[in-house]
């Protein structure tokens, strides 16, 4: 392990730990711009998380240890998942054949515990949110894996770095499929992060929420962990898209890391534009859009048959 590699790891950790709350800031600034408001400062989420981590907690008398495990496990899983990803053109810290399965299943583990923590409160609203999350994520999972299958076939690799990073050759070989996969992955990213058009993070009616309602009863440090984990999850899933659209292969750290950061911030702007320009879908229409995302990637697979 040479010096570049160590430096790369440090930058990787730094980006994963410190960049994510900024993405939410960028999204909110974009939405404020479209709404003609000044909006909260870019660093608002850093302040929120810091404040929440220092607060006291109120928990429901109905809950057990599962309620407390929810935030811990969901934060831990996105952190480990972030170590499987190649960021900034460098090889991922945990690169091995088949790490895409571990990546997806780690997110699944976090979701499983978030749902259980919601059910632990015994609240009908949180049950509703949990049921929706379980349903929509079950449909998003095949879309994600179909996209990964296209990447695996096109790149000939079963390792996330190879699948996402070997992009120049792949673009020439399977460009049309990749476009479909990118669209499908954007849909997956939006649904997994509970963004519009699937869920409105700013809604204030418990009956219509998905993710927000599942964490209604969490407060203080636990809620801070949830917000932090959600921000990292946005970075993690967003970087799948960024790696495909901005294929940086790491010759020079000084070029590839800034390029990646600009890319992920640009993606945050895109999310903000989407949220400003469209309304949330009715809940019954969400499955159709997710099946549509599966079909897009499915076509991507079919187009690789020759």
């Amino acid at each position, binding site marked *: 392990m040479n010096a570049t590699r160590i430096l790369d790891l440090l930058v990787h950790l730094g980006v994963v730990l410190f960049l994510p709350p900024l993405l939410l800031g960028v999204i909110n600034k974009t939405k404020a711009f479209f709404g003609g408001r000044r909006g909260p400062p870019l660093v608002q989420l850093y302040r929120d998380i810091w404040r929440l*981590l220092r607060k*006291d*907690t109120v*928990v429901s*008398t*109905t809950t057990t240890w599962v309620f*407390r*495990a929810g935030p*811990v*496990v969901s*934060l*831990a899983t996105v*952190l*480990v998942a972030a*170590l499987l990803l190649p960021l900034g053109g460098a090889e991922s810290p*945990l690169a091995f*054949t*088949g*790490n895409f*399965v*571990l990546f*997806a*299943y780690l997110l699944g583990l976090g*979701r*499983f515990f978030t*749902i*259980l923590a919601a*059910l*632990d*409160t*015994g*609240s009908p*609203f*949180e*049950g509703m949110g*949990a*049921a929706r999350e*379980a*349903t929509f994520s*079950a*449909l*998003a*999972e*095949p879309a*994600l*894996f*179909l996209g990964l*299958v296209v990447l*695996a*076939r096109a790149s000939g690799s*079963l390792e996330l770095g190879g699948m996402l990073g070997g992009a120049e050759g792949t673009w020439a070989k399977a460009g049309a499929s990749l476009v479909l996969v990118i669209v499908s992955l954007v849909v997956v990213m939006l649904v997994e992060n509970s963004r519009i058009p699937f869920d409105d993070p700013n809604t204030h009616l*418990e009956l219509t929420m998905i993710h927000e309602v599942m964490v*209604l*009863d969490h407060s*203080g*440090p*636990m809620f801070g*962990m949830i917000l932090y984990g959600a921000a990292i999850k946005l970075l993690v899933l967003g970087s799948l898209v960024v790696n495909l659209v901005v294929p940086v292969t790491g010759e020079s750290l000084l070029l590839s890391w800034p390029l990646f950061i600009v890319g992920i911030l640009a993606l945050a702007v895109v999310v903000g534009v989407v949220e400003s320009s469209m309304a949330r879908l009715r809940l019954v229409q969400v*499955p159709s859009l997710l099946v549509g995302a599966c079909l897009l990637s499915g076509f991507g*697979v079919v187009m690789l048959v020759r």
Partner: protein
Amino acid sequence: MNEWLVVAGIILAALSGVPGLVLSRRGTAGERLATGLLGLGAALASTGAIRTFGGVPGPGLSAPWPVPGALFAVRLDPIAAIFVLQVFVGSFLASLYGLAYWPQAEHPFNGRKLRLFFGLLAAGMGTVTIAANAMFFLLGWEVMAIAAFLSLTTVDERREVREVGYVYLVATHVGTLSLFAMFTLIESITGSFAFGGVDTVAHPVLASAVFALAVLGFGLKAGIMPLHVWLPGAHARAPTHVSAVMSGVLLKMGVYGLVRVGAMLVEPPVWQGAVVLGLGAVSAVLGVAFAIGQHDLKRLLAYHSVENVGIIFMGLGVALIGKSVGRPELVGLGLAGALLHTWNHGIFKALLFFGAGSVIHATGTQEIDHLGGLGRRMPLTSVLFLVGATAICGLPPLNGFVSELFVYLGLGRSLAGVNGTWWVLTAFAIPTLALVGALASACFAKAFGAVFLGTGRSEHAAHAHEARWPMIVPMVVLAALCVVIGVAPALFAPALDGAVVAWSGRAAHVSLAELAPLSLVSVGAALLLGVIGLGALGLRRRLRRVATTGTWDCGYAAPTARMQYTSSSFAQNLTRLFSFVLWPRTHAPTVRGSFPASTSFASEVPDAVLDRLMVPALRTVERMMVWLRWIQAGNVHLYLTYIVAAIVLLLLWRP
């Protein structure tokens, strides 16, 4: 030597219930002796099996049997050893669990019968795994089938138990019939009842028939969709520790049979692997979809067996495809995935059934929507059930993830470096497996959430108590196995490698450690556990001062436990999405007027194949056959005439 150990284990298991027959109905000596004998047998047989993994397989044993073509032939190769271990460990733990779950003192009239047939069931399954002659195999197969029938109908005074028992008996005998036909065809190809190689190139039609009969016969036992009809009812109605053995071990005898036949087929055509893969995929998706619709805890677990057998078949399909196209890495990953998942499913499904049994023992109901909040009253059971639930969803860092990863890798390896179009099938199998995993998580979030979390929905739940130690200990052992296989899969690679070598019949084989990132899976699991541990410590330090209050209820003044989301409401979105195969039944009254009378809503998901297709179809056939009824008039003289006529006909008939 190793063979002798296993044979001794089988004999001890077969006799384990016998001393109890002459002992008192009320005493505890009989049940303790039975568990002790089974434990001794399990220790001997497991030693034999484990020694097989390290050494060179012995020549086997054989003793003459005066039936033509038959031989008491025993052979213990690594494939058999994998299943022997599972049979004996599973049966012994279930027997230990039964000490507290089905004590003789509480069941004076059927306890002794249950233990006799339980021992015979273990012995029958053990015989199936080590038999090296078709006749001997079928003998074990029938002992196993009948003993399973008699164990599952322990409470035979109840009508619904008898009904599911008969469905099982019919299903298992249809399976046995096709196995008789299959072994006859194999004999006509190879000239013996030993398990020799079936040449598919020289006999394409006969070999295809062998394959089809194997899928039918072994698929019926394994419970592959749509041959699963006997499975949900039988698992739901049997005593819970018998359900655990049926689901964890008995189904695997079907898997064992198909693995064995797969090893016998020489150069099988690609379509055979594709059929197994496709059946597995259908079974996995539909199994979990039906599970989501269930609100009987044991029925739900039973449908998950259909799902997991589907995943095992997917792995086996990959291995068969690899054998056809000459890709040893597909054989290695597919078969290792299938066999490890066979173990894993035996482990976490037994764990889950034991957990369900503790709940049933404590509350007297297996209706999920009547439970709730048991996590507080049964803390140990709830943690152990959660370990099983996480493992069965294939989530890291537990064992289900490792075996599913092997299957994913096998499927993924087939994407690269091939021409032709068959890779499209494996390509679409990958998202199918992902869908299955996500649906399983949804289903177990529902099951665990509705049973152990929230607040109790009925009196049943309010008076629950923690299980006694003979029930807890087997669960702790199984949960520990889930963690060990998940964190250190490399420990089990030699056994799987041995089985792959024995299956593919070639010594030069790429080892599992080269094919799969075993050590990095361990690193990932350790990292995950470490980060979770750090997070938990950090949170613990921050959560010194905690105020408590009621759950946020949006200002509603008087929330009750009945307002919680039930398991049925949790599952409603998904059952609606899958209604095109599930055909759910709902009874929803229309509410009229300003002051409607009290009313009720009910919904259920009956088995589409059994209740919606087969039963109506069989009723129609029954009606159409009225005109044949005079043949069976109940007159003994008439029957004697039939027999004489049949004998005369046979004497006259000269082919």
